[in-house]
């Protein structure tokens, strides 16, 4: 059966040119970048070239890029590293409720370690109001972390405005840009952030390579202690092949970005427009400020998992909420934070497109998905409504 992959926020296949760039470092060029002889120098040059390419992608200086093993590590490093580095100035951290678990759980760790944390709610489109950030700031606030875009609902957050508010008070700003870097223009200078997380597998690079941008002059306590890799800020022998792959993926993303967006956005709009015509299906997230390849919905009276299984039987692979929440069969905290009822949040589904998807793939999806909804509603005990359970549709952004 043909496979239709619509889960590119989970991960992406490797770009063939990325694999090609990585191959020598998986084979004959196996050196440790810290070794002083030829093998080491070749590996060191390779990671420094990758650093330049990643820096260029986000308009940073190469010395401001610290490679990590995952986006989650970059987020842990950022939040914990800055909170600890500035703890003598204050012990208050602000995050949004839209954050990935790697930010939220780092915030919880800080809370247990004696920091105060404010978790800010978002509006029904998933947007964080910079005014709410302003109100949450205290004399003790040292760090604010807000995602650049949620991979669950696709909403792009007003980071520049949040930075403006934070900078009036000398607060360090981190953004989790794992969902955006390589997919839409990300410019650290334009955004004004002090730290920014990114991951290679979100833009056709390999897993196991990610990075944290740390603005020059920012003090950060390491997360992993050991040797002097990454300027003594992140220990551990570099994953050279993956880092090289990240560099190549960054170069390709920078060169092809506008072309990719121009290809993906109309496909995404086709899904959103078609689903708007299906009864009691609501778009989640913001319609305008949205990732170009992201379409997410809440489908009333049925469960996300049931949709995933029936779609998978037709060869269509998608996601329901975040990978973690979905596995635990929990209502997504992101959707709940947007004011969507827990009943409706059960019917969450996300389609995220990639360059491997064709217009014919999307034709197939928009033909099959409404049929899956119809079939599930025929057998759903809630097909005639939630009964005494709450209605939730009004919280979503698209409602007929």
């Amino acid at each position: 059966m043909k496979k239709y992959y619509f889960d590119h926020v989970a991960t992406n296949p490797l770009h063939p040119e990325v694999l090609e760039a990585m191959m020598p470092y998986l084979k004959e060029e196996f050196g440790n970048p810290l070794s002083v002889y030829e093998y080491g120098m070749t590996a060191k040059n390779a990671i420094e070239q990758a650093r330049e390419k990643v820096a260029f992608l986000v308009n940073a200086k190469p010395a401001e890029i610290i490679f990590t093993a995952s986006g989650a590590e970059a987020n842990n490093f950022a939040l914990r590293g800055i909170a600890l580095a500035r703890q003598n100035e204050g012990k208050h951290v602000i995050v949004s409720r839209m954050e990935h678990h790697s930010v939220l759980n780092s915030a919880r760790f800080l809370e247990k370690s004696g920091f105060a944390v404010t978790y800010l709610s978002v509006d029904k489109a998933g947007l964080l109001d910079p005014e709410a950030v302003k109100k949450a700031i205290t004399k003790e606030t040292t760090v604010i972390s807000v995602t650049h875009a949620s991979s669950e609902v696709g909403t792009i957050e007003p980071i520049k405005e949040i930075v403006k508010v934070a900078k009036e008070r000398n607060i360090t700003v981190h953004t989790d840009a794992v969902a955006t870097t390589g997919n839409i223009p990300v410019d650290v200078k334009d955004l004004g952030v002090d730290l920014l997380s990114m991951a290679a597998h979100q833009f056709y690079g390999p897993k196991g390579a990610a990075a944290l941008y740390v603005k020059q002059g920012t003090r950060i306590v390491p997360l992993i202690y050991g040797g002097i890799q990454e300027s003594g800020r992140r220990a551990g022998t570099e994953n050279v092949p993956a880092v090289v792959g990240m560099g190549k993926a960054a170069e390709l993303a920078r060169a092809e970005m506008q072309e990719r967006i121009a290809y993906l956005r109309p496909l995404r709009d086709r899904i959103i427009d078609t689903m708007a015509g299906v009864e009691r299906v609501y778009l989640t997230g913001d319609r305008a400020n949205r990732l170009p390849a992201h379409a997410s919905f809440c489908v009333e009276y049925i469960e996300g998992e049931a949709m995933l299984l029936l779609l998978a039987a037709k060869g269509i692979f998608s996601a329901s909420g975040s990978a973690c929440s979905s596995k635990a069969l929990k209502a997504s905290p992101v959707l709940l934070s947007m004011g969507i009822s827990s009943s409706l949040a059960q019917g969450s589904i996300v389609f995220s497109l990639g360059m491997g998807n064709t217009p014919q793939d999307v034709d197939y999806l928009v033909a099959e998905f409404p049929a899956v909804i119809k079939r599930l509603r025929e057998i759903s005990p809630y097909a005639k409504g939630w009964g005494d359970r709450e209605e939730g549709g009004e919280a979503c952004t698209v409602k007929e």
Partner: protein
Amino acid sequence: MKFVENVKPDVTTDIVYMMCPMHLLKLEEQVKLLDPGQILEIITDYDGALEDIPSWCEKTGNEFLGVEDSGDFFKFYIKKLAR
């Protein structure tokens, strides 16, 4: 240990929270860039530098002016000497 105050450096390098032995690598890198007579300030939280930086200066023929303990961090002052 030689303690000093109010030294006016020509160049400052902040390596706070960077792991050992970055204090020696940065020291070497930065001193290379100085002109003879210029003063380098290195800010670090690493207490091992109290031993390492004076002995590095002795070994390389540069002048260790002293250290200032600012409470949270150490500020080391090194004057490059003509060789």
